């Protein structure tokens, strides 16, 4: 079974990876200071994913480990991905009901006008039919 440990990396590789990680961090910080609009988060996460992959593959020795270990880790990532995707499938496509009164901190804070719910037509204002 010794072949699972056969290809062992040298210390030089680790320092190289570290240099790459530092460079990527600097890059992502720099990009974070530029106005990228909607792309801000996706780009940040993409760079983070590259960095994380480097750490997992080399620092955590996943390249040297048995295939089952890779499978385990990949599975956990897939499951988190699906958890997020299906949750967003709800949040992204919901009926756009507005928030009812009395449910925001604005209503709960002392000194706010008394809560009244007398004219439903006000409340209904802004609800769109899909």
């Amino acid at each position, binding site marked *: 079974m010794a072949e699972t440990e056969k290809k062992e990396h040298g210390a030089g590789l680790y320092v190289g990876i570290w240099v790459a990680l530092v460079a990527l*961090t600097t890059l*992502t910080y720099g990009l974070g200071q530029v106005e990228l609009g909607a792309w*801000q988060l996706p780009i940040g996460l993409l760079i983070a994913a590259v960095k994380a992959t480097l750490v997992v593959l080399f620092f*955590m*020795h996943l390249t040297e*480990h048995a295939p089952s270990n890779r499978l385990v880790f990949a599975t*956990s990532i897939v499951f988190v991905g699906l958890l997020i995707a299906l949750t967003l499938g709800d*949040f992204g496509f919901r009926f756009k009901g507005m928030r009812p009164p009395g449910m925001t*901190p604005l209503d709960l804070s002392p000194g706010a006008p008394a809560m009244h719910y007398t004219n439903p037509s006000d409340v209904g204002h802004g609800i769109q039919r899909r």
Partner: protein
Amino acid sequence: MPEARLAEHFATMDAQRRAGQLGMWVFLATEVLLFGGLFAGYAAFRFAYPADFLEGAHHMKVMIGTANTYVLITSSLFVVLATHSIKHDRSWTCAGFLLLAMLLGFVFLGLKFYEYYEHAQEGALPGVWYHVETVPRPGVIVFMTLYYLMTGLHAIHMTVAISVLGVVAYRAAGNAFDREYHAPVELGGMYWHLVDVIWIFLYPLFYLIVPK
């Protein structure tokens, strides 16, 4: 081969090592799912309050967050070098690298708590404690709550990881490990790296979503 290091129900040292590694990966998978739930929460609320999230991100101390990222990446390098040394039977080097990594871990926590302190000064606290504005927007509160929950849970993991490295470093200094048997160094290191990986994702989610 030292007899006590091989548990009696394993056939070979190699089988035991493989079991340890796989066990660690499965454990790390549970950690990924633990944080995964919070990431899902972040994603959901980001959908619900897109503008408020950008507003909330102005509370972030980007310089501290960035510094912490460099600190953690460097500490990970030390940990991997420690593992590398022990594979070549260099116990003292290993212990030294682990101590350096722990030191950086403390630096990370120190910076993190200084950042929390600054937030507290401003009133940028989570949940009901938020009092920057008298009538805050709900999304901003949720953003701050998520920030505290995620970085707080990460800080707890960081503390555990430092303790783990401490025990491992102590044993390494006592010549407990060698080329044949160094599972605690390797597994403890993996845990450290995972905590690092989680921070790598937290960094853009909180610090980089809006240019200062």
